[in-house]
């Protein structure tokens, strides 16, 4: 059985762990570099990207996370997607990024909390987990968006409208600007687990 870590520096890591356990996966909270040992995959949760970035820097997690991401699946939701990206706009000056995924992210792209919303997204790749593939109820909270995909191997998985990319994958790296961990619908987590090699 794979062991999936959830970065537990700050944010809604417990919500991710609930979904992973529901799917029968062994989980581990990660706060220090040693806790990355032996993981098959990692989720970086929603939260405040400035806080997560600072704590990751202060506890020497940046390089070990980059090393993990070179080989193993990593999924960033919202703040986690910002942290995964190679380039980000509207971030705090000097805010650390892992720079693993060739996407440009715009932080707080929709505005303040009053502009947060729920909507239904069509996500074709989720058909593998439910042939009917109903729309995915996505929760956007002070959410970022993916301004651009910056390499030919980055696949767009979902858009809000023709302009706005909100989910993308590059090989074993996954970024969503919304929060599948706040739903009872586990298909996005199933999709992420399918990126772990047998």
């Amino acid at each position, binding site marked *: 059985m794979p062991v999936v870590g959830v970065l*537990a*520096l*700050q*944010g*809604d*890591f*417990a*919500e991710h762990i609930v979904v992973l356990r529901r799917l029968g996966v062994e989980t581990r909270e990660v*706060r220090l570099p040693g806790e990355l040992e032996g993981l098959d995959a990692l989720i970086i949760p*929603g*939260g*405040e990207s*400035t*806080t997560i970035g*600072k*704590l990751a820097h*202060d506890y020497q997690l940046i390089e070990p996370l980059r090393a993990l991401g070179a080989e193993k699946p990593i999924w960033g939701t*919202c*703040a986690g997607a910002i942290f995964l990206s190679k380039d980000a706009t*509207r*971030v*705090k000056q000097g805010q650390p990024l892992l720079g693993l995924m060739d996407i440009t992210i715009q*932080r*707080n792209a929709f*505005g*303040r*909390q*009053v*502009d*947060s*919303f*729920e*909507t*239904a*997204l*069509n*996500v*074709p790749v989720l058909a593998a987990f439910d042939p009917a593939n109903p*729309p995915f109820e*996505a*929760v*956007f*909270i*002070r959410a970022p968006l993916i301004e651009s995909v910056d390499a030919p191997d980055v696949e*767009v*998985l*979902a*858009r*809000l*409208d*023709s302009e706005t990319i909100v989910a993308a994958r590059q090989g074993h790296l996954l970024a969503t600007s919304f*929060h599948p961990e*706040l739903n009872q619908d586990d298909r996005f987590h199933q999709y992420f687990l399918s990126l772990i090699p047998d």
Partner: protein
Amino acid sequence: MTEGNGNKDVASFKVKAGLAQMLKGGVIMDVVTAEHAKIAEDAGAVAVMALERVPADIRADGGVARMSDPELILGIMDAVSIPVMAKVRIGHFVEAQILESLGVDYIDESEVLTPADEAHHINKHDFKIPFVCGCRNLGEALRRIAEGAAMIRTKGEAGTGDVVEAVRHARSVMGSIRKLQTMADEELFTYSKEIGAPYDLVKQVKELGRLPVVNFAAGGIATPADAALMMQLGVDGVFVGSGIFKSGNPAKRAAAIVKATTHYLDAAILAEVSRNLGEPMVGRQVTDIPEEERIADRGW
């Protein structure tokens, strides 16, 4: 076709409670200037509470404490990229309408300010901006949630630097939840009546084994050890009011409390971040404060 259906549901309860979920494991800091707000953001705060005076000063100054000047709140919103909260008086729904028009991220209907209504809290369902409210016990928490609060904080006793009331209120809420889980379903009706809380929410808490919204601790947290204590007692995060900017070295203490909230189970890290923090805020023992000056008793 990879696009959505284009229908956006704004200000749903899930979206309101969801922001609080993103603040979990974090520290929300009281700030009175844009400079303070930047220090808080640099230290790793997940949000700031914009106000004119920290609770210790409100206590010292006396008089009526009201919503802060919108100019000050807007200045703080401009200064930082993290969420900004602001306080309104209990029951003062017009102050809340004003904060909503400013676009703050969360409204704290707070006992730290002088109450505007001695019988009723704000109907928080009427607002697009989510609310956080204080509680001393499970019944009070569930009354606030019934009124629409999307986040709860235990009250503690603000502006004292004495953590004892924060501990009392967190233990009361957590203890009641544990007791509730051992009750038979038919006992929930009488228990709901006893604690003055809606039956449906009591039943939901029994099923979940926790409050249905995020619960932070507040009121008297002044050190990294205080923050870790509250986390170990089972809260989701902490508010620090006077404890940071009334101390000798606010930037260092703020960063240390952030680290302590993340590594709350790691005593070696707690020891490390507690070293050489300089003077803590001058505390005031809660037992020395006359009953009528205690803030936590405001709220109904």
